[in-house]
């Protein structure tokens, strides 16, 4: 009998009030099954948004499932908080570290359950036990060191020690190596083998193919919130894994009525995102949709923000209509006809407390009202026009953006961008987290914009979208462009995915 079994876990998407929308075709998790044996390392893979993290959050007690059950040792359990899960022996190590830098290792390990002696904190005992624990894990860290003085890998280890000290039988690791160097990864893997030997089961979420073979015993694939299948170690083949990860048919959602022109609207020459990353060069023509693929963290958003002057970049040159831009600054670029639709609509795209009208006109105030005073009906006409063109479902133009659904919020942000009458549109995940209907409408809009001659640069983690919309695709990895795909025939999900995770990694 498996140590852990998750059966038919289903999770619906939420509306803006946090209530699950049940009458929708989109589910974050759709009847997902998952099992874990004692002492195994089970790899969980899938594209961005496939539901890996959501599934683990359900197991870790962070979000309740809408349907399905969790069996631990054959008995049904339902963790309702992270603490609940810990009491059941399920520890969660998040992608971002959750440690207090200004406290010592010892205090971090015992946080929230400090040992006491006659009502006072018993530092000595906590020190002794921490030392024992760390020794047991085979690492040499002084429990009195402040956490901020440790390296990222050492902090990762403290995080593991903290979870381990709860006598966890199951440890969930969500992309633990994403911020580690090669030697630090080696330390982590040694620790994983050690934990395994002690009978601890580990669920390991990762994107890196080369890690699968090194630590994995079994591997399960999720795609679009559905469980696809599980492979034994002998069956770990890149082609197999990749085809399981992508294998869906492209629908007829994508329209391609636009025709790319010849003139280069945007040209980036040798721009570096960080001093140590490789230089980036790319170009976008009039009426062309150029996609940028890659994993989250590959530097795609950083590239867009660098071009738009919202982030520092190093060296290089950005040319707009053939002329080098002297100063990259959002205000100047918008006035020149460049607009950037941000990845996160809530924190960087909308003013949530303002109405639809105010949001749509926000980036165009300089154009609508060049003389400072806002008299007349120009703003309302613009908003009404955009709401109509984008089919925003709302009660009134004054409705606050906060109360709109995700898809309608995204349409408002797109409306704000289009209102500036751009010649170059940079889109960052234009359809993230919105339903299929709104997606199709946005695709139609993007195609229409391109047809009118606007150059479009589109960052997307959604493979079908990237392939379906783009005339050319650049793939990014580790802050640089690794390949440019110019032929439609070469735009295969498998090809792109191999470039995004780096086939050269060792698995073949």
């Amino acid at each position: 009998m498996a140590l852990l079994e998750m059966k038919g876990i289903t999770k619906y998407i939420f509306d803006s009030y946090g209530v699950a929308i049940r009458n929708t075709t989109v589910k974050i998790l759709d009847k997902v099954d998952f099992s874990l044996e004692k002492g195994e390392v089970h790899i969980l893979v899938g594209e961005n948004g496939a539901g890996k993290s959501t599934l683990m959050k359900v197991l870790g007690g962070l979000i309740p499932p809408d349907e399905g059950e969790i069996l631990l040792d054959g008995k049904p359990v339902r963790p309702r908080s992270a603490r609940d899960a810990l009491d059941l022996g399920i520890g969660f190590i998040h992608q971002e570290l959750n440690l207090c830098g200004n406290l010592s290792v010892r205090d971090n390990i015992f946080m929230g359950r400090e040992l006491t002696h006659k009502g006072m904190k018993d530092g000595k005992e906590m020190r002794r036990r921490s030392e024992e624990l760390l020794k047991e894990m085979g690492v040499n860290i002084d429990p009195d060191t402040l956490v901020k003085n440790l390296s990222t890998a050492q902090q990762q280890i403290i995080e593991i020690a903290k979870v381990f000290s709860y006598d966890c039988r199951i440890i969930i690791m969500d992309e633990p190596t994403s911020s580690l160097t090669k030697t630090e990864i080696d330390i982590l893997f040694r620790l994983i083998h050690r934990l395994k030997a002690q009978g601890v089961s580990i669920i390991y979420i990762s994107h890196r193919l080369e890690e699968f073979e090194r630590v994995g015993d079994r591997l399960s694939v999720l795609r679009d919130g559905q469980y696809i299948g599980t492979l034994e170690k002998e069956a770990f083949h890149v082609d197999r894994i990749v085809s399981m990860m992508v294998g869906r048919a492209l629908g007829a959602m994508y329209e391609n009525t636009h025709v790319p022109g010849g003139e280069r609207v945007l040209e980036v020459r040798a721009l570096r995102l960080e001093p140590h990353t490789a230089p980036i060069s790319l170009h976008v023509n009039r009426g062309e949709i150029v996609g940028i693929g890659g994993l989250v963290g590959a530097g795609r958003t950083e590239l867009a923000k660098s071009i738009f002057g919202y982030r520092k970049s190093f060296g290089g040159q950005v040319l707009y209509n053939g002329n080098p831009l002297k100063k990259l600054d959002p205000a100047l670029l918008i006035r020149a006809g460049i607009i950037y639709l941000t990845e996160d609509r809530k924190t960087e795209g909308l003013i949530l407390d303002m109405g639809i009208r105010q949001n749509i006109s926000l980036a165009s105030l300089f154009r609508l009202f060049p003389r400072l005073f806002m008299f007349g009906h120009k703003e309302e006409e613009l908003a009404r026009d955009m709401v109509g063109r984008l089919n925003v479902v709302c009660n009134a133009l004054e409705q606050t953006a906060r109360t709109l659904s995700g898809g309608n919020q995204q349409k408002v942000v797109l409306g704000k961008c289009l209102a500036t009458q751009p010649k170059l549109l940079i889109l960052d995940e234009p359809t993230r987290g919105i339903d299929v209907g709104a997606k199709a409408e946005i695709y139609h809009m993007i195609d229409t914009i391109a047809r009118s001659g606007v150059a479009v640069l589109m960052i997307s983690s959604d493979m079908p979208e990237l392939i379906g919309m783009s005339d050319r695709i650049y793939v990014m990895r580790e802050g640089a462009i690794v390949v440019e795909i110019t032929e439609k025939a070469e735009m295969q999900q498998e090809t792109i995915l191999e470039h995004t995770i780096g086939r050269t990694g060792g698995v073949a």
Partner: protein
Amino acid sequence: MQKKDTLETGWTRFLKEHGSIIFFAVLFLAASLFVNNFFTVRNVFTVIKQAAVPLVACMGLMLILTTGGIDLSLGYTLGLCSVLLGMMTKRYGFPAWTAIPLTLCVGAAVGLLNGSIVQFLKVPAFIATLGSGYVLFGIAQIFGKGDAFYQLPGDLLAFGTARPLSGLMDKLPEGAGGNLFLDQFFKLPAYVYIAALVAVIIFFLRHKTTYGRSLSAFGFNAATARLSGIRTARLHVLTYVISSTLVALAAVLLTIRVDCAQSNLGGSNYTFEIVTAAVVGGTSLFGGVSSVVNCIFGVLVTKTLENVVNLLAINIYLFQPLMGLVILLAIVLEAFKNRKL
């Protein structure tokens, strides 16, 4: 797009958006009923005259609060400007038409300093202006040598105390001459008109210009504002400059009104009073939300309270704890208003 009735009725929306007007109306009614000598023409005009100068300062502070910042140096800026005005006119004999613009320039400089510290050095406005406030107070003490300047020159006093409409009184038809209301109205000094003019200008600036809209957007969400092409750094610093210039104007008017220029004309009590007026006037301390009309009523509320305490003649120190309670009440009500259901 379909029109659908929202849950909020017109009445609850009015209550939420114009709470200070209700607050003032209730206070005014209660004071009229229960406080002797409150509801007299002379007393009501006294409240209006007392509210004029704080209104000018409050208009400035409201703009800063809209960015999500605060200006705790307000009272000290006022003291410094007062002392400098007194020195220029009394000690060095500057004419009013030179001294007043120079004082306004000092205010603008203080705003430039505060705004730059907040915008470019990324110091929270709270700390930045608390620090700069003490520096300004110190400078005012050094310049003024702790003295106060009394009996200011006539040309300076005329700027604020002239009665622009008094000439009209003679032109009144027979019978209206004895009307106390008209008499008081026509005798209103110039500083009341200046304050009213400032309120009108700031009303347009805040509610009818791209500056006001950008300011509100910046206060709600600075990242979105900047990514939407708003020149946020310039907007932010400019707001402090406008605000402190208005505080300098308030300093000029107050100095004239009390005919005394000294460094502790303002001080932290004054700052607190203006902050209270703005918060009672529905201005959010988290930025984004503010209204000129509501702020006018916020100032009227604080001044009416002060007036009532004076009339009751119980204990003059009752005013401060009362103001404390009012600001607490206003903040609790604001939190209640913004509660997400």
